[in-house]
């Protein structure tokens, strides 16, 4: 029996070598593997065998069948690959465009927030969040902005009712964190803020800020400068120059506005920088002792700095976007560019 199956195998191999067309190969398949083919004929012999040989012979036939199928399929595959260009005269055009998988994008503002988080994470700042609908106390009083103070107009606010408002700045989170935690503190707080501004190319009633706060023993203005320096070089590039200008915020003293050299005109002056060569990117300063008093910190022992930046503003600067409304229209043609 074994000899018979071996012979079938040898015959098949020889015949396969001789085959040159796909049609012949198909014929060979029917001859060996078809319902009335050679291998099927072997099967019919099984019932006639003595019981103890049946299983072994069955296995041999199955192995032969599998092997034969492999040989023939391989031959068919090879012939059909060779056959195509010959038959149709087609050319495989490798310059046709590839099939692009569809991928999405993070919103450009998220990308900026993520970049900011990453730079500050390396400097040991944790990310924290606070409520957007906030008590007046956290938005104003605790930040040394008393009622009826002229600076309140700089933080014009939406109210829900008497003492509940939509926060106009993320500095509120500073107070909430310091109330719960003793120094050392290193946090950044990204989030939405709201101010009743009429919407135009530069204003939106809702926008995003990132607030930063560091409080410890022996923290100085020089530390503030270096930390912001590192952020600016990482985010805007190492050739960008930085300038600190004195300014006023009720919750910092000394207070500063931080400018960077205009990347569009490299400081020579253009319409983006109002011909000054500088663009304002964030506000910063040493935490005012009044703020520390509001959270019962020892103002002699601890010092700290805080900074805040507009996410839309720095995203617009970085990518040369001239209209803030684009961020909230969510036109895919816009979103797909970043």
């Amino acid at each position: 029996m074994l000899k018979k199956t071996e012979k079938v195998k040898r015959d098949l191999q020889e015949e396969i070598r001789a085959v040159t067309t796909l049609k012949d190969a198909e014929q060979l398949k029917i001859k060996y593997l078809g319902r009335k083919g050679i291998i099927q004929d072997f099967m019919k012999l099984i019932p006639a065998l003595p019981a103890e040989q049946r299983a072994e012979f069955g296995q041999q036939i199955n192995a032969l069948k599998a092997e034969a199928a492999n040989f023939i399929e391989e031959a068919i595959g090879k012939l059909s690959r060779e056959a195509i260009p010959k038959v149709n005269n087609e050319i495989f055009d490798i310059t046709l465009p590839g099939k692009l998988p569809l991928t999405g994008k993070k919103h450009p503002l998220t990308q900026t927030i993520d970049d900011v988080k990453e730079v500050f994470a390396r400097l040991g700042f944790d990310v924290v969040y606070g409520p957007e609908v906030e008590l007046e106390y956290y938005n104003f009083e605790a930040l040394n902005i008393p009622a009826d103070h002229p600076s309140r107009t700089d933080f014009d606010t939406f109210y829900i009712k008497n003492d509940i408002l939509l926060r106009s700045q993320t500095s509120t989170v500073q107070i909430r964190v310091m109330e719960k935690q003793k120094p050392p503190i290193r946090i950044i707080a990204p989030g939405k803020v709201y101010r009743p501004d009429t919407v135009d190319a530069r204003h939106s009633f809702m926008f995003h800020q990132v607030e930063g706060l560091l409080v410890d023993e022996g923290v100085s203005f020089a530390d503030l400068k270096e930390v912001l320096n590192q952020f600016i070089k990482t985010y805007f590039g190492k050739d960008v120059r930085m300038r600190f200008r004195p300014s006023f915020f009720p919750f910092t003293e000394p207070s500063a506005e931080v400018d960077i050299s205009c990347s569009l005109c490299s400081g020579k002056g253009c319409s983006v920088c109002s011909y000054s060569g500088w663009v304002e990117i964030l506000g910063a300063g040493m935490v005012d002792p009044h703020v520390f008093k509001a959270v019962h910190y020892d103002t002699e022992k601890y010092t700290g700095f805080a900074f805040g930046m507009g996410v839309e503003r720095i995203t617009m600067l970085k990518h040369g976007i001239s209209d803030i409304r684009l961020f909230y229209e969510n036109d895919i043609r816009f979103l797909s560019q970043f």
Partner: protein
Amino acid sequence: MKISYNWLKEYAYFYLSPEELADKLTNAGLVVADIKPVEDDYCLEVEVTSNRPDCLGIIGITREVIAAVGGELRIPDTDFETLSTKVTKFIDVTVEDPVLCPHYTARVVRHVTVRPSPEWMQKKLRCIGIRPVNNIVDITNYVMMETGQPIHAFDLDKISDQKIVVRRALDGEMIVAINGVKRALFHDMLVIADSKRPVAIAGVMGGKETEVSDSTRNILLECALFEPGHVRRTSKELGVFTDSSYRFERGTDPGGIERASKRAVKLMKELADGEIVSGVIDIKQREYEKKRIPLRIERLQKILGIEIKRDIASDILKRLQFTIVNEIDNFIDVVVPSFRGDIYREIDLIEEIARIYGYNNIPAKTSICVRGSIKSKYEVVEDCIRQFFIGLGFYEVKTFSIVDISPLQSVKLWSEQDALDIANPLRQEESRMRTSLLPSLINAKRYNVNHGNESIKIFEIARVYLAGDKLPHEKTCLSLLIDADFFTLKGIIESLVLHLGISLKREWISFSEPKLFRDERAAKIQLDDKTLGYLGEASRELGFKTSFCLSELDMDFLAEKSNFEKRYHPLSLYPPVFRDLAIIVDEEVLWTSIEKCITATHISFLKGIHFFDVYRGKQIPAGKKSVAFNLCFQAEDRTLKSEEVETAEWTILDVLHTTLDAELRKL
């Protein structure tokens, strides 16, 4: 505030071009936003922060220039000859509310000739955008711009009974403003009145009836101090904002009243041929006390992170016109000039020194210690979810949290309570805090369709605002919109849940919210018997041509249940056996019942049940459907025998038959 370059140069010698001057001022904290040539002069637009009312006069700005570049401040002298008649002969002043008016002064100038002011004065006023009127009015403006102290000139002859009373307005009182408009006054407003009527709203504006005209002969000159908060409220209530109210509400110099008043009457004598009456009406609540602050050099160095020597610090303070009473060792004893109401603490002095020393001369260096930062679980989950959806081709969108009051926007997915409304909205379109992100995603879809993007996949992670006890509950949601069918989005959500390592029991319960979802094609998703979110085909009423699906999930809940701890499970050494089955059941039989039925057999080596098709057609009786699925059998400890699998299959079919009346579909 607008200043004139030439005018500024009258108070100090300096050799700076307008551009150099602008640069010095900007670096000292007074941003020069614009420089415009005007005639033979330059007009500089200076942005003065709200804490520096002393810089709302040109002399104040000159002080800053001197502090930056050095030099001597030259203040015009205010000596003049007077008539012998006393001022009390012409006017009687009573201050009824000394809290709102802590200091009131009045002088009288007689026999003035009202005519145009000289060209040099007109030119300077024009340069800073003030229209010249006549010599008297121009002098009041000129002195205000010079000193930052608003002053007001009345036509003395129109003051009834030669009486001035500083008092609260009476209910129903009116005043005709300088622009001719009649205004009603409220009872808590402070007015300057004569014996009959209010003649000015204190600190805000004068009245028409007593204003200086061409026929005016005698002048009553008011120079006073008003309580800033009150001026601010009055100005706001009336909607009247003037150069005067702008300065008073920020706080004027309590020590500058006498000089401003004298300067004005002297100019009236010189430019309007007036005769100054002797003396002054001067009603003062109390003497102004100058603040004295000790400054520790050590503290200065600690805050700034740089060594600044005592003599440098004291020199800067002197240039800023502070008085140094004493300086020894590491201390400077400083007296603050009256015009610097913003300085009352040591830290304020430190800022002054830093400002003039130059922020840019403080080196950037840090000695803060190294500290690691660990991402919170929420942060990790949020990043993971963003990456997941971006990978699937979704774009992230950002939409406004403040929405309109349409019924769609007030959908109550997460709370039965009413949405929060904004008390002072700018527009109807933005007056309510949203309770779901989905309406905004639908708007984003509409925007894109209108701009040629028919098919989109978008998501947003943002908060919704649900009424709470004091502050609302701000729930973070993940919302999805996709141009695909229900089961595609359901599959994405299932996949997300697995991706986040959540293996809790999930249930899909039919749900109805006709404003958002198409009826019978929406589900509430339960995770561990709590609501994870909603999924459904968008309602036809939304008016889109093609159908799409929406989902909103509770992000906080997802973050809470996520599990990124991975444990290795040994891989089975034995091959799995797959069996496809198709059964015919009643139309009402849900897949979940079939699944439950099969799991209830508790066959230990049944590893998976995978639905793949529902078929209704010729071979299937009416009211029935064929449900096809694949079963995966695999044992951990042995190769399964075909009889074992066969028995299991029959057990399953048996249970399906007895419980759901299912028949095996023969192919």
